[in-house]
């Protein structure tokens, strides 16, 4: 799905890739991302260079009304992070949520870190409302702790569980669980009971380090350990 979205095609067109290992798909997607985000000798690089001639207010107007979220997502990481954060401050939250869908967070980590944590959380709330678990999962590993903690607070428990499934870096699970508010870990999995993610949720959270593992799984820990 991520590759299909990156290339602007319906996901079903790439059904023939479903049997490939996730690591292989991710490797291909990263190569394709490099190609599409590469500024060298392309209009992307020239547009980023041109933006240095303008104050941030007209850049924000151009971003929203002339470029749209896909192209802004491509360019955002090429602009000076301080200026990009200033531009983002001038853009509507809904628009930033659409940009997030098309942004490569690895290339925009410095921009994200310069944005107020509450603004990131507002965008996260918008992504939750749009059911963008995959996008949220892509960003988790590239947000500072404060931004991630605040964003986790605006996600309902089921969304947190769904995001855990799609984390780009499976090693991020411990970091996510460590930033969840005290008292919430013990009831997090209750939201997944009876849903399509329930069968795999126990297995996923059984991979967390202690004591997080025990706090999330609680009495289910013994059952998970036997699998």
């Amino acid at each position: 799905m991520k590759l299909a979205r990156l290339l602007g095609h319906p996901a079903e067109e790439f059904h023939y890739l479903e049997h490939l290992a996730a690591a292989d798909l991710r490797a291909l997607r990263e190569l394709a991302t490099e190609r599409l985000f590469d500024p060298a000798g392309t209009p992307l690089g020239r547009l980023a260079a041109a933006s240095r001639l303008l104050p941030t207010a007209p850049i924000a107007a151009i971003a929203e009304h002339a470029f749209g979220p896909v192209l802004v997502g491509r360019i955002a990481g090429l602009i000076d992070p301080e200026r990009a954060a200033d531009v983002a401050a001038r853009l509507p939250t809904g628009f930033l949520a659409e940009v997030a869908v098309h942004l490569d967070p690895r290339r925009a980590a410095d921009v994200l870190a310069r944005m107020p944590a509450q603004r990131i959380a507002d965008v996260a709330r918008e992504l939750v409302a749009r059911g963008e678990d995959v996008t949220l999962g892509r960003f988790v590993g590239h947000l500072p702790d404060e931004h991630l903690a605040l964003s986790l607070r605006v996600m309902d428990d089921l969304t947190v569980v769904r995001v855990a499934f799609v984390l780009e870096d499976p090693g991020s699970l411990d970091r996510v669980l460590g930033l969840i508010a005290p008292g919430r870990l013990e009831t997090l999995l209750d939201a997944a009971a009876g849903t399509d993610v329930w069968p795999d949720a126990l297995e996923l959270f059984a991979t967390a380090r202690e004591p997080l593992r025990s706090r999330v799984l609680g009495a289910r820990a013994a059952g998970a350990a036997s699998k």
Partner: protein
Amino acid sequence: MPRASGSAGALARLEEALGAPAPAAFAALPGERLEHLADALTQARRRQAHELGQAGERGLRFVPRLLRGPLRKVLG
């Protein structure tokens, strides 16, 4: 560009589109699937370049006339 025949040719076309060797697992895909991937990526790059050009022109309308000339020089 003429279509590459066979899986080897299709893999070469995909790698040209990627600008890098494809992950080893993809060599096992049928040629038509590799062609589909190569086409999709090539079209995405072309579409992006076209849309960026058009967006650049649209964006100039938000810029004071005095700056449009210098910006056009940078945009090429």
